[in-house]
């Protein structure tokens, strides 16, 4: 097996404590080395590692950091502070890697953020944590206290004259707050709705200041790159996507869980790495990168899991959430369930997304319950084409991921629902569990 940058083969007890992190995981050695370098040198190291953002979009991290203005100034000439934000609002269905990192390696996140703060010149940082991660927040809080006490945060970090204040901000339960500008609005105490871009956060971010937002796993990956140099990281993975990433494998596999694997692993290998499809059943479909990633059919799994290969295959690497579905799964039901999620989570500011996610969810629900019409299938395609790429953020595109891919690749199943007047995989009268009470309350 290849080198591990984020996890260890065998679990180390109490890895969340500063003492274990220091003694067994070379804790804060990356920061120590980073503080001997200039800002540009740190950014350069990250660029050389080919690290791409692990939040979903896969944007090259070094490049993102280099977009931060060097010496931003207020109109009156006084210097503007720069901010650093960690996106720990892990909400993408099928994704649970940041949670593991927060649980086991909170200090690695803190270290990674301190390195990033040094690289971009940020004076203040926030970790925006999904509100439901209560246990993780408790652990993270403890870690922050330890880091402050030991001089890894606060004033004059490690005696190198570098100041960085870091605090935790709890989200209040909205998927959209994982979108970086909605997150910034939420951080400012406003409605969690994505902002119009430009201006981008690097120019106008949190509280109007230049801000860099990165994912938990991205920050954690930075630590090893700075500690051991970028070469080892870049060597793993593909030419344009360096390193390993955490794959969250769920659904019908023998051993679901979080796996740290190089980015060039194929989906087929990943599934067999997890013990193959559960109970030896036949594979039907896989969502390779969290709910928003278009589904792949069983024939399409010989694809590498890096950002570019998956994009070429018409889907995306996204957040690394791999949802495996075997032959017993009704794709219409699965897609309908995902669309119900999107209907619930659309922030509702853009017309197409607010109305379209709602319409699609109900359309899929109708088809799943056997009340569909062949004409509906054309409507799905048309609605999706009117949503994708038309809104402020990528949410509307995400909605069309499962809707279009399921229809395109499993059209026969949709047609079977329509012609048969019921789901062919269910007993007469049986309802999908999540439809039991749904949509009976259209009047608000």
């Amino acid at each position, binding site marked *: 097996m290849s080198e591990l940058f984020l996890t260890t083969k065998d679990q180390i007890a109490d890895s969340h404590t500063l003492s274990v992190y220091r003694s067994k995981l070379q804790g804060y050695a990356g920061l120590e080395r980073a503080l001997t370098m200039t800002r540009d040198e740190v950014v350069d190291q990250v660029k050389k590692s080919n690290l791409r953002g692990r939040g979903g979009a896969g944007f090259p991290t070094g490049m993102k950091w280099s977009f931060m203005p060097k010496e931003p100034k207020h109109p009156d000439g006084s210097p503007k502070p720069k901010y650093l934000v960690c996106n720990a609002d892990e909400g993408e269905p099928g994704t649970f890697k940041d949670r593991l990192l927060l649980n086991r390696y909170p200090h690695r996140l803190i270290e990674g953020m301190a390195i990033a703060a040094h690289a971009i010149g940020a004076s203040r940082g926030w970790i925006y944590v999904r509100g439901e991660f209560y246990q993780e927040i408790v652990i993270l809080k403890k870690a922050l206290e330890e880091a402050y006490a030991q001089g890894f945060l606060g004033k004059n970090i490690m005696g190198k004259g570098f100041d960085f204040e870091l605090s935790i901000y709890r989200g209040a339960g909205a998927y959209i707050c994982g979108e970086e500008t909605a997150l910034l609005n939420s951080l400012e105490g406003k409605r969690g709705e994505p902002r119009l871009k430009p201006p981008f956060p690097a120019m106008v971010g949190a509280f109007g200041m230049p801000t860099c937002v990165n994912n938990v796993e991205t920050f954690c990956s930075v630590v090893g790159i700075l500690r051991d140099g970028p070469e080892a990281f870049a060597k793993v993975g593909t030419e344009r996507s360096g390193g390993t990433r955490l794959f969250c494998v769920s659904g019908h596999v023998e051993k679901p869980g979080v796996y740290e694997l190089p980015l060039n692993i194929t989906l087929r290998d990943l599934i067999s790495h997890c013990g193959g499809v559960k109970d030896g059943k036949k594979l039907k479909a896989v969502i390779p990168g969290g709910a928003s990633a278009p589904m792949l059919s069983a024939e399409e799994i010989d694809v590498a899991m890096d950002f570019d290969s998956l994009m070429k295959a018409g889907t995306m690497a996204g957040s690394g959430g791999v949802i495996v579905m075997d032959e017993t799964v009704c794709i219409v039901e699965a897609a309908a369930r995902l669309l119900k999620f999107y209907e619930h989570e659309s922030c509702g*500011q853009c*017309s197409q997304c607010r109305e379209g*996610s709602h319409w699609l969810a109900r359309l899929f629900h109708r088809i799943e319950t056997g009340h569909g019409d062949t004409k509906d299938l054309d409507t799905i395609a048309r609605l999706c084409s009117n949503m994708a790429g038309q809104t402020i953020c990528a949410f509307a595109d995400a909605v069309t991921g499962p809707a279009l891919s399921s229809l395109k690749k499993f059209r026969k199943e949709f047609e079977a629902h329509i012609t048969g007047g019921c789901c062919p995989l269910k007993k007469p009268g049986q309802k999908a569990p999540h439809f039991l009470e749904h949509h009976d309350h259209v*009047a608000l």
Partner: protein
Amino acid sequence: MTAEAPAQPTITIDGRVVPFLPGDTIMKAAEKAALDGTIPRFCYHPGLPVAGTCRMCTVEVEKAPKLMTSCSTPCTDGMIVHTQSDKVKKSREGVMEFLLANHPLDCPVCDQAGECSLQNYNYEYGPRTSEFQEQKRTWSKSTTKKLSDKLTLNMNRCIHCERCVRFTDDVTKTHELTMLNRGWKKELVSAEDLGVVSEYQGNIADICPVGAITFNDFRFQKRVWFLKPRPTLCDGCSKGCAVWADEEKDTIYRYRARRNDEVNGHWICDSGRVSFHTYENPNRIVEPLLKVNNHLIATNWETLAPSFVKELQRAARIILVIGTDATLEEMKEILTLKSLVRNAVFDVRFYNGTSGVHTSADDKAIDDVLRRLDQTSNTKGAESLGLTPLSQNGQGSASSAYDLAIYFRGGRAGIPLKLATKEFGWGVFSKDEVQRFDGVLPGLATVEKSGSYINAAGNTQKFVAAVKAKGSSASVTRILEGLFVVARREADLGVN
């Protein structure tokens, strides 16, 4: 010749080259070139911050992979914009289809019908039918919800453009309105359910592009397609806001704000908005009145004019009080009344009558948006003519006991306390204001006359009549003409 100025940057909109200033958005540049009629919009409003959420104003920009919202995309030199390409039209059709999916389509009972962006844009850009088969979303508790005494909300019609929310956030800064919940359940509510309280609520109904928020004063008063908008000025205070008086058959049904960036921007206050009721008041005196046997009775000009001239020529001490709501032209003209007077003392004063306002020096803004303390429209005008103010309490000086007082006003200025043994009102009055007078010469209200006011900022603003005069009320010019004719005739006949 100066050195050659750097060429102004331009963009091309539908083949027309349009200049822009740095920072202008495509929409702004289009507006300046009067091309914005080709760009439909719901959430964009020139008086509000850009939201960019309705996605109706998207246009195709060459070399940009996606459609761009014209309200938020800054112009760059050489940019080529298409507002009517197939891609743009498809997108607009899509937005319309989405917005109408859950819209009740209750146009026959909707008071916005006829001036509804949703109706107009769907006619122009939308699909002719809908594939929406699902049950419509409805807000059963907010179908006819009182947002305040002035506003009614029908949430089912809302298209979530949030102009109203941005208006209370950024214009009045009163923050009463907000969206509750998320996505398709997003509902407009007033914060803490306390209702809207600002003095500018009518604007919210004005800017609501659909029939979700309507202004109670106008709601169900008139189908808008019968109304003709006439430009005029609000005379409710010294600000001098530009308004549209929407009339049918010379009856005004509402005022709406008329854009004037120098004075009121896009807005007017609520008291100004309903001020036209002063002129539409059924108790307004629109026929000449004369006191007979201690009763004011309606008469005609032929009867009133000789009596009034007689009083003028009989009196030894006369005071003419000009309200600060008269136009400059009226003020100048009415001063010629003096030539009808024989050897009498003829004092002229102006009178404001707003509590706390004696001259324009006492006037001040009473909020951060528009409203001013002086409740009349032309105090600065009266001062510009060199008139002197009536003493502060509205009483004549103790030394001067008059035997005839003439109070001329446009309907807003105060009426002084009794200044003379005989009193005549001239201008716009309501029944309860004239009981102590010996006669009334009904005059014209702002909407019925042409003229000019000088507002608090010192701007002279001209306006023309929006509607015809009511009843027998007449302009100062015509009344004076009549009075002179009568005086000449009586002189010829040797009366007196």
